[in-house]
């Protein structure tokens, strides 16, 4: 009898442990700093992906709409995963996607775009990674949301997911 009771208690305790660990797993440990001061977009000059010309930042962000800057590279595996979501976002009329091709081989990057589709209205080349730094990026992929006043209002480290897409859609509506 005593034995059975201790068995049941042990069992319940273990189940409890399982639940705690399971929940703990879903708590993200990734720390994303909050943007407290809305930062202006940096001014820069960069090469266009398709045409071999220099473009200034004023030219890139000239329209009075929302912009999404997405930093990507053909060698970046999470970029591949988020690409379909970017395609979905690009269908939205009130936002334009700007791609920042980060430290990449142009040939591979073009292959990537041809294979998976092009969600970007414009792609800029960032061969040495300095443009990413100007934006305050930590790595690839990273996505910035820029409002009509040309300020960075949201920053998403790592690949975007359905939730983030929903959030973006809510803001730009």
């Amino acid at each position, binding site marked *: 009898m005593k034995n059975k009771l201790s068995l049941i208690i*042990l069992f319940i305790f273990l189940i409890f442990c399982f639940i705690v660990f399971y929940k703990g797993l879903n708590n993200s440990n990734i720390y994303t700093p909050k943007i407290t001061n809305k930062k202006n977009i940096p001014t820069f000059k960069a090469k266009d992906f398709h045409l071999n010309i220099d473009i200034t930042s004023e030219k890139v962000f000239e329209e009075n709409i929302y912009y999404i800057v997405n930093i990507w590279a053909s060698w970046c595996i999470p970029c591949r995963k988020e690409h379909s979501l970017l395609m979905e976002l690009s269908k939205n009329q009130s936002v334009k996607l700007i791609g920042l091709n980060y430290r990449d081989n142009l040939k591979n990057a073009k292959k990537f775009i041809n294979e998976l589709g092009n969600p970007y209205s414009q792609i800029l080349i960032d061969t040495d990674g300095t443009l990413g730094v100007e934006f305050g990026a930590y790595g690839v992929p990273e996505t910035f949301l820029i409002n009509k006043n040309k300020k960075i209002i949201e920053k998403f480290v790592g690949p975007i997911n359905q939730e983030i897409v929903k959030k973006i859609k809510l803001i730009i509506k």
Partner: protein
Amino acid sequence: MLASQIGYYSLILGLLLTFTLCGVSIKDFNSSKKNVDQNIYTLSFLQLFLVIVSFLSLILSFVKSDFSNETVFNNSHTTKPLFYKITGTWGNHEGSLLLWLLVLTLFIFLFLIKSKEQPKKYRILTLLFQQLIIIGFFLFVLMTSNPFNYLFPIPTEGLGLNPILQDPALAIHPPLLYLGYVGSSIIFSASLSAVTQNYISKEWGQHIKKWILVSWIFLTIGIMLGSIWAYYELGWGGFWFWDPVENVSLMPWLTLTALLHSILVLERKTILTSWVVILSITTFTLSMCGTFLVRSGILNSVHTFANDPARGIFILIFLFVLIFLSLGIFFLFHKENNKVSKNFFWLSKESSILVNNWFMMYFLSVVLIGTVYPIFLDVISTEKISVGPPFYHKLIAPFLAPFLLFMALGPKLKWIKSKIEDKISSVLFFIISVALTFIILKNLSIDLLFYTVLISAAFFLFFTTLKELFVKKFNNISQLIAHFGFSLFLLAILFNSILSSEIITNIKVGEKYNYNKGEIFFEKIEEKKENNYNSIVGFFKITDKNSKTIQLKPEVRIYNQPTIITSEADIKTTLLRDNFLVMNLVKGDEYFNIRYQVKPFMLWIWISVLLISFGGTMSLIKKRYEK
């Protein structure tokens, strides 16, 4: 590219073969033949062979810098020296799991060859339990952590290996630790099998003892290497930080040590059987739990490679399946042998071993609670706490003193019933120890009772085991060496913590810094270029009050792939002390931040751990039966 293909398909073949092996084993288990079917040996060997092929092809991909392989791409770079390309193979999540699998299959194959005098059913059942674990890991590797993922377009360059992992000690730390960790799987399988077969006996105890010793030795040395690495690479000058990941390796060590002692009893008398089985189960479960905590990203540390919840959930479910299975088997099949009297005479070797077990369980629960409680609290109340060294020190240190006394006296007791022998010498040693401690501490002007008690107890163990070593010659030598090593270990740690001194200051090139015990002179800096990093080397002359001068050359390294700045401490090791100097760049300034530490007896910490594991090795190779 071809290598990746071969590696991947040999893994799949390996999994299929495992199912065949299980089928053949079950058939053989039910057959009436006396010996284990020859096919089982062949299949088990093939299984090992396929995993080796897979592992070698991953190494080959790393050596050739084949970036079409995702694992290689994520963890290697063409400019890396060949040695670190190879060690990079297990310096990442996917590769290290392949290593798990390799050790799992290696151990079961060795077990099959080495256990021919054991009963057939017991051996086959052990094989089957082990195959269960192996299947779990095969699935884990193939489903969530395939080391051979193909990348297209093929990147021209890899992302590089984290520079702090580019280190010789750390290159062999994982394989050794894994031999210990995963080696405990065989103890787990064997004890479950022995329980179901009602074979927990003296013979079984003698047979399983070897496997326990092997795991224990590797685990001990593996933990030591990790801590040596932390000592000189992380640049804090400490060697144990009670980091969750360190704790996770310490926990199986504690249960394994308790198991090792319990098995000494079991191999003579059929008692403590529940202890042995529970400890065998716990050791492996804690190893798995460690893998879960480290790999799932539930804890953040240097060992967390990727935050992929799918992996965490897989190990978590697998872990609990194993726990429930083993507990179920234990409760269903285990019977305490009632014929043997359960009454222990209070003064006997077995009761002292029982005391040891309880101490180990206490230490285990402290470490376990300190490690896991923050996770529980976070989930239940979203409150974040961090448990630091003071918690462990305060809870463990006071209990070390009685523990040491038991360690000194316990082995002198006889089995079944005994009287305390050599009372006079014991009392004498005790008085000497206390007096010696008192004199030493008085000289150092430390009057904490806490230190006096602890150091006296350590000295007592030190003298007692030293005397026994000389008097008893080779009788019981493994135990004496191990216990002597432990006393040395604690003495080294205690004096190290009392006598360490540290100076932190900012200093410019050409400047001198005077402190109460000497002078630090920053001579010059030089720049050095290596294949995978550039470095700034500082030249320091340190003169102590006896005007003895030592030169230390710490480095700041700027690794290129990925770009990470690390500080390489320069350590001058002598028998009596380590002089430890590390420097850091102060941003936008010509000053360097330096940290100079004098740490006495550091070398003895490592020597004593080696002694402890040497004791284990002696016990393993010694033919003669211990009294």
